């Protein structure tokens, strides 16, 4: 059983080479066979688990009819391979100093994607440390709640990313990238966090791998999500306060990395940033979608019909969606934060209200004013507060493959309480946005439609916020009586 030290000397420094690697897909050596597929001309394999179904068996990979959307998706993959762009979105818009470093990162990333040793070690970490596979849970009482008078309604399943170590899907990506960084010989990891979940995940992964960790967090966020700050500090990570919120913390984290390119590694928490960051994060999160496909087949011998996920920058949404983008019979629904209301000026609904521009290294939709200055967003779900969005989601919106709606703070807070009461599950306020959309979605769906909602994180951190809101509501109700 291969159990070598991750700090292998296979890393490409100083020369940009495409490694020639024979894919060892031998069940005898690894104990199970790795699923492989061709992606962007490279052979990509990822280890999800022992019983990953061969998608050819499901007859999904070679549809007889190539629709327009599938052609656009194909074109998107071509532009990605050529220039790091999804159609017109993405790219590398960073100071020249970072260009070479990003290109090296891309090579390293492609290497680990088809390195069975890395994939196996990652698979073990995901299983034993992160706690995967996460359940696909049939939410019976929530389903009943949405049934109409005739007892008809969709079936609601929750993908329980809240049950991972750390309490959010962030750990899938943080673990994989920390392993990648260690393999590249980097000693210190730098990351920026909004709600603190990515910070906690990164700090935990660094503690496990013995790497130094510095987390930048907005001062406003540090107050709002203070429990996460404590957790990060307990693992030994250094938490640095930056005036403002997540977007300012991200800018500062990137700047600090620019000054120490050889030693430090910027661990992107979400699918934004210059290429290859959006692709890397999506690739490491796609385990969510892969598991969902397998679990759906096990549970009802079919696919999900609708996938719903909250969208801050897009990592959990892409993690769930990406596996299914070629399955045109699967609806992809992203739910953004409308904050105080989509027209209030205080929201984070980038895809709804943003315009295309360049931010944090990528071309994508973003919330900007008439001067092209970046607007600070708002949401009760702190993890959704980001004025940009993943270029890949921008692409999916443009080609019409995915739909995007938005939910206000109030609706999200109600959804939090609803899930607590109906299922005894505490969703993160971010995930509560996705759950809140069910109110509008379910009445429109045929009976028996299979809906999978990504419960992207758990809401212990938000219990106080919800409590304050409920008290405020009760107080106002008493006053009006």
């Amino acid at each position, binding site marked *: 059983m291969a159990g070598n030290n991750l700090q292998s000397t296979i890393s490409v420094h100083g020369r940009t080479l495409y490694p020639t690697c024979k894919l060892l897909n031998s069940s005898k050596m690894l104990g199970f066979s790795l699923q492989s597929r061709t992606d962007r001309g490279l052979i990509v394999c990822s280890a999800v688990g022992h019983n990953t179904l061969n998608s050819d068996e499901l007859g999904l990979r070679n549809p007889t009819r190539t629709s327009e959307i599938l052609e656009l998706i194909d074109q998107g993959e071509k532009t990605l391979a050529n220039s790091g762009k999804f159609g017109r979105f993405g790219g590398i818009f960073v100071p*020249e100093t970072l260009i070479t470093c990003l290109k090296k990162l891309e090579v390293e990333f492609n290497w680990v994607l088809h390195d069975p040793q890395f994939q196996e070690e990652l698979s073990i970490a995901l299983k034993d440390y992160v706690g995967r596979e996460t359940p696909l849970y049939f939410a019976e009482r929530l389903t009943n709640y949405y049934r109409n008078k005739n007892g008809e309604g969709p079936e609601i399943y929750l993908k329980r990313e809240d049950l991972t170590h750390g309490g959010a899907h962030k750990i899938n990506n943080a673990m994989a990238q920390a392993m990648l960084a260690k393999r590249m010989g980097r000693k210190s990891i730098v990351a920026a966090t909004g709600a603190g979940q990515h910070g906690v995940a990164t700090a935990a992964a660094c503690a496990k791998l013995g790497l130094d960790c510095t987390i930048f967090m907005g001062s406003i966020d540090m107050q709002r999500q203070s429990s996460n700050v404590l957790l990060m500090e307990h693992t030994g990570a250094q938490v640095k306060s930056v005036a403002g919120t997540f*977007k300012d913390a991200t800018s500062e984290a990137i*700047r600090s990395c620019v000054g120490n390119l050889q030693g430090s590694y910027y661990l992107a928490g979400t699918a934004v940033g210059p290429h290859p960051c959006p692709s890397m994060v999506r690739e490491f999160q796609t385990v969510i979608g892969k598991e969902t496909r397998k679990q759906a087949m096990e549970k009802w011998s079919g696919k999900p019909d609708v996938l719903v996920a909250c969208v801050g920058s897009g990592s959990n949404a892409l993690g769930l969606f990406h596996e299914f983008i070629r399955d045109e019979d699967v609806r992809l629904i992203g739910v953004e934060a409308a904050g105080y209301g989509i027209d209030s000026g205080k929201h984070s609904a980038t895809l709804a209200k943003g315009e295309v*521009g360049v931010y944090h290294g990528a071309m994508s939709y973003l919330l900007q004013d008439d001067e*092209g200055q970046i607007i600070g967003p708002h949401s009760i779900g702190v993890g959704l507060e980001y004025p940009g969005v993943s270029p890949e989601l921008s692409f999916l919106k443009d080609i019409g493959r995915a739909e995007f709606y938005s939910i206000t703070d109030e609706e999200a807070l109600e959804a939090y309480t609803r899930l607590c009461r109906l299922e005894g599950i505490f969703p993160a306020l971010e995930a509560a946005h996705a759950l809140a959309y069910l109110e509008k979605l379910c009445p429109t769906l045929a009976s028996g439609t299979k809906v999978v909602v990504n419960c992207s994180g758990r809401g212990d951190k938000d219990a106080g916020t919800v409590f304050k809101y409920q008290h405020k509501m009760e107080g106002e109700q008493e006053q009006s009586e």
Partner: protein
Amino acid sequence: MAATLKAGFFFQTKPGGHSLPRIKPFRFKPPMATLATVPTVGLSETFSKLKRQGKVAFIPYITAGDPDLSTTAQALKVLDSCGSDIIELGVPYSDPLADGPVIQAAATRSLAKGINFDKIIAMLKDVIPQLSCPIALFSYYNPILKRGIETFMTTLKDAGIHGLVVPDVPLEETEILRKEAVNNNVELVLLTTPTTPIPRMKAIVEASEGFVYLVSSVGVTGARTSVSDKVQSLLHEIKEATSKPVAVGFGISKPEHVKQVAEWGADGVIVGSAMVKVLGEAKSPEEGLKELENFTKSLKIALL
């Protein structure tokens, strides 16, 4: 082609043998008088002229609107009169990735006072005719995209701005910028850094207009205690690849640095954060301008 007015003298430059119609002489007017458009020479021509004189260009950078726009206008005149050869003017941006704390703070202060691009252009239309050296604008990419690249470049041309530096656009994405810049006689300066491999550096210097901006260190803007001696070898490599002028920036803050970089063979020296700090952190705008003048003179002396 270009006619320049310097302290009342009037001479013609005629490349390629085209002769200008003979213009009637007029009475000497002091430089502060408003002349409708007084085109100064562009960036490349400035460097050619300095090279003939055996001089190294002094290129200060300040952020527009810090501490306020009228002080910026004054500061441009002060820098010009102290002998700056080109002046870089930064357009404040909410998320300046390439900038360290000094320039970030200047941008934040400026934006808080309500600065915007139109105001900066209006100021420049007024001030540029009074300057003898060309202005290069320093702006991040998103505000340019928002305006529309064509519109942006035309605005620059109308204001009399000669050059543009955009720090967050990589070479691959500069094609459309370069096309529109050329159409409007704006020289788009590209940056090369210590992390840029030689083949890429060659492509960058080939495409750069005006001059080549050599970033002296791996990091963001901000004063450093000394200039890395890698700069010497980088200058050597670049000069083997091109005859275009090379100016070094990032981290230069003292007369010793300026002297050192000039000795290593740079055609120009760019000083940014140190200037911004002197101007923006002074007790009052008047004091800031005074200190700016003294500081500029001390740096300029190092180039003599």
